[in-house]
């Protein structure tokens, strides 16, 4: 039935009921009492059914954004945090889908790491290392030694079986000691092995943390969207239930209390405001230096001709910026033509940040429905990516895997003797070796080494696996974009042709070129969010596909500067395969690991292992801590 018909039935029934109450004699004459009872029971059952449906049919709420902080990125070592967390009492016997318990997987991961680290630091062969691990003689730390030497199920106190609390199980504690012992061998910060690893975060909450992969930072889709807050459904259920109770007890007064609920829902239905708002945004400065605080002033105005009783604004802080003062959220009631202004402060980081459209939620006066919409207020904040600050010094003169001017491998015209070859018709007479002619009687032509500028492609790793960050920090690919621009600028200043791309290669690929206009193009690409986005892309092509796509784009004489955090094995494979394909590869690796806790230390060790593997394979790797600034990297890469 349509709404009108339902309302007509309601009006008819209400009128009839009122009439029968006013003139009681009518009832007996019109219908027998049994009909009334049947009608009551029937409608009562329908009411209860509808009440249940109303409660069940509650809508899925739209996730509102959390603009204060960056999306949560994966932390290096998050996998081992999950493994340590998985070591529960249930895991003592539980088998996983692949037949391995969490304990076995943790042990396999740590054994793998330990054999590798001991091999590199002590020079032990894998077999020796495995033996030393098995007999527990590899370390002085008794707990760490027991991890490999003792079994999977060290005795647990009976208290641990109590249903409350999460006991610190010996197996997990020993695992943490192993990581700490290995970190001590490698050097650098050693985590406290007795500190438990917090559960890995990352799930998308209703209004909370958002992961960079999968979850989106800012709501998108068709706007405005109107949604119920659940009030209508609950009131419907309550009104129907209370009516049924009133009828059951024969108390018309109880049935009348449903009028209160109907009035609330009625107000919401009649006064459901349209989101008629406009948004203007201004910045205290549009070109701050990295680390500067920028004040954002947002004004929201009611442009309609009705009062908006409940308006909530979530300003579209770009994914790369964090709010350090004030709040980008505001709520108020606005009469027509009135406005509210809110101020908050963000900390500038390198990049060109485009503000997202503000999300505005407009509610009715009683809070039964909300209309969510987005309001554009185009604003851009540009930070960093200026001129290179270092003096550009000449690159290494010798044949090198590093970018820069090199001695060419091809012969041609030049000044340095390369070879003597048989004369061919058309060779310039000045290049004929007359001494050779005098000695042998044959014509021969002198070849010189041809000096050539090597071409360099700077590739930033933007695969989902590269999106790691320290807690609350900038993700590695964005650090990579800063490094890529600074390195490319430095090379361009020396006249070296440079191109910029991403791994995997996308639309935003800048071919090798030179000159100030080219430099401006590179800045556009790397400062913006299209080539190196703040949120991890969802597509994750396999390594062979990535390498094939890269080699198809790179001409054979191009050297590669690969900027990657090296937080997965794929990055190592890509660097080695590109190197093998003839693009002499240099890796610059922003260090986005946090060795402060055990999981972070595992991530650090894992990365250290990859760095060593690459260096062992002859690929120069520059380990760069983004906190130190980029200047040091430029100097190290070029010398």
């Amino acid at each position: 039935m349509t709404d009108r018909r339902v309302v007509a039935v309601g009006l008819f029934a209400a009128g009839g009921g009122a009439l029968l109450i006013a003139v009681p004699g009518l009832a007996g004459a019109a219908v027998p009492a049994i009909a009334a009872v049947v009608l009551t029971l029937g409608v009562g059952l329908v009411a209860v059914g509808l009440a249940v449906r109303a409660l069940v049919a509650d809508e899925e709420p739209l996730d509102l954004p959390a603009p204060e902080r960056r999306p949560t990125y994966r932390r290096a070592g998050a996998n081992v945090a999950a493994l340590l967390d998985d070591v529960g009492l249930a895991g003592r016997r539980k088998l996983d889908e692949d037949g391995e318990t969490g304990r076995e997987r943790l042990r396999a991961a740590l054994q793998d790491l330990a054999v590798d680290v001991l091999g590199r630091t002590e020079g032990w062969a894998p077999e020796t290392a495995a033996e030393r691990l098995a007999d527990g003689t590899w370390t002085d730390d008794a707990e760490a030694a027991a991890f490999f030497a003792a079994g999977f199920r060290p005795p647990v106190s009976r208290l641990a079986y109590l249903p409350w609390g999460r006991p610190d199980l010996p197996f997990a504690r020993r695992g943490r000691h192993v990581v700490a012992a290995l970190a001590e061998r490698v050097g650098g910060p050693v985590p406290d092995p007795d500190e438990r690893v917090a559960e890995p975060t990352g799930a998308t909450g209703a209004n909370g943390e958002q992961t960079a992969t999968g979850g989106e930072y800012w709501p998108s889709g068709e706007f405005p969207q109107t949604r119920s807050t659940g009030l209508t459904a609950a009131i419907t259920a309550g009104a129907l239930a209370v009516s049924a109770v009133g009828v059951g007890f024969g108390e018309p007064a109880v049935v009348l209390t449903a009028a209160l609920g109907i009035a609330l829902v009625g107000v919401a239905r009649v006064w459901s405001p349209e989101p008629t708002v406009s948004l203007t945004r201004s910045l205290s400065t549009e070109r701050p230096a990295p680390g500067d605080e920028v004040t954002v002033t947002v004004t929201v105005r009611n442009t309609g001709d009705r009062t908006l009783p409940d308006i909530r604004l979530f300003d579209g802080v770009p994914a790369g910026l964090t709010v350090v003062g004030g709040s980008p959220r505001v709520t108020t009631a606005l009469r027509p033509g009135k406005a509210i202004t809110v101020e908050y402060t963000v900390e500038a980081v390198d990049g060109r940040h485009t503000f997202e459209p503000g999300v505005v939620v407009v509610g009715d006066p009683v809070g039964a429905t909300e209309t969510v919409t987005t309001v554009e207020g185009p604003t851009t904040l540009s930070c960093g990516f200026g001129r290179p600050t270092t003096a550009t010094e000449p690159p290494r003169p010798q044949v090198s895997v590093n970018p820069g001017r090199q001695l060419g491998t091809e012969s041609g015209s030049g000044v340095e003797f390369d070879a003597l070859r048989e004369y061919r018709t058309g060779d310039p007479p000045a290049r004929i070796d007359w001494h050779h002619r005098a000695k042998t009687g044959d014509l021969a032509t002198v070849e010189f080494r041809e000096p050539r500028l090597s071409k360099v492609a700077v590739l930033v790793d933007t695969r989902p696996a590269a999106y790691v960050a320290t807690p609350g920090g900038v993700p590695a690919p964005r650090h990579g974009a800063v490094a890529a621009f600074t390195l490319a600028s430095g090379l361009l200043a020396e006249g070296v042709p440079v191109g910029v791309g991403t791994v995997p290669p996308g639309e935003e690929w800048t071919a090798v070129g030179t000159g100030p206009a080219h430099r401006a193009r590179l800045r556009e690409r790397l400062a913006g969010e299209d080539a190196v986005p703040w949120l991890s892309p969802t597509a994750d092509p396999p390594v062979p596909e990535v390498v094939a796509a890269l080699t198809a784009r790179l001409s054979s004489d191009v050297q590669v500067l690969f900027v990657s955090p090296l937080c997965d094995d794929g990055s190592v494979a890509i660097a080695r395969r590109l190197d093998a394909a003839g693009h002499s590869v240099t890796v610059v690796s922003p260090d986005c690991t946090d060795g402060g806790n055990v999981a972070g230390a595992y991530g650090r060790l894992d990365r250290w292992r990859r760095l060593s593997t690459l260096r062992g394979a002859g690929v120069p790797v520059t380990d760069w801590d983004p906190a130190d600034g980029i200047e040091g990297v430029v100097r190290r890469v070029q010398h």
Partner: protein
Amino acid sequence: MSSTEAELPRFSLGVTAVSVLLVAGLLVTAPGPLGVALLGGALLAVGLLWRREGALALGAGALFTAVVLAGIDGRSTAWLLAASVPALLAWTSSRHAVGLAGQIGAGATLRVELVRTVSTLTALVAGGAVGYLLQRTVTGGESPLALALLLVAVVAFTVALWR
């Protein structure tokens, strides 16, 4: 909405507390319903503390049940309608408090809370007044068919508004 551990807006908290006290005060002569109402108040407190809308609905439902129980026990229609208003107000204002704390956090929310409270109260009083007038104009009459038709009317209006 539990991630934003912001303070709950005070005005809505105050309205909720006053409403619960009002319901309890109205029920002070009936020990059974008073117990149910106090349980409802405790559930509301739990819901506010843990920011759970389910607990809020249960608490307000208990408050309302207490009022209805007392009403069935021979109170006047006017009393029943008047006592239902704070029970419902406690629910809407506590929901609003939790919603605001979750979405906006600590901030200037007094204006929107005032508008919300006044408009809810107006709607409730208007609805109650219509019900009371209906009851006053047509007194007497114990016809079961009349009750059945009233029920049909309530169901029809609720369904029409719900859709």
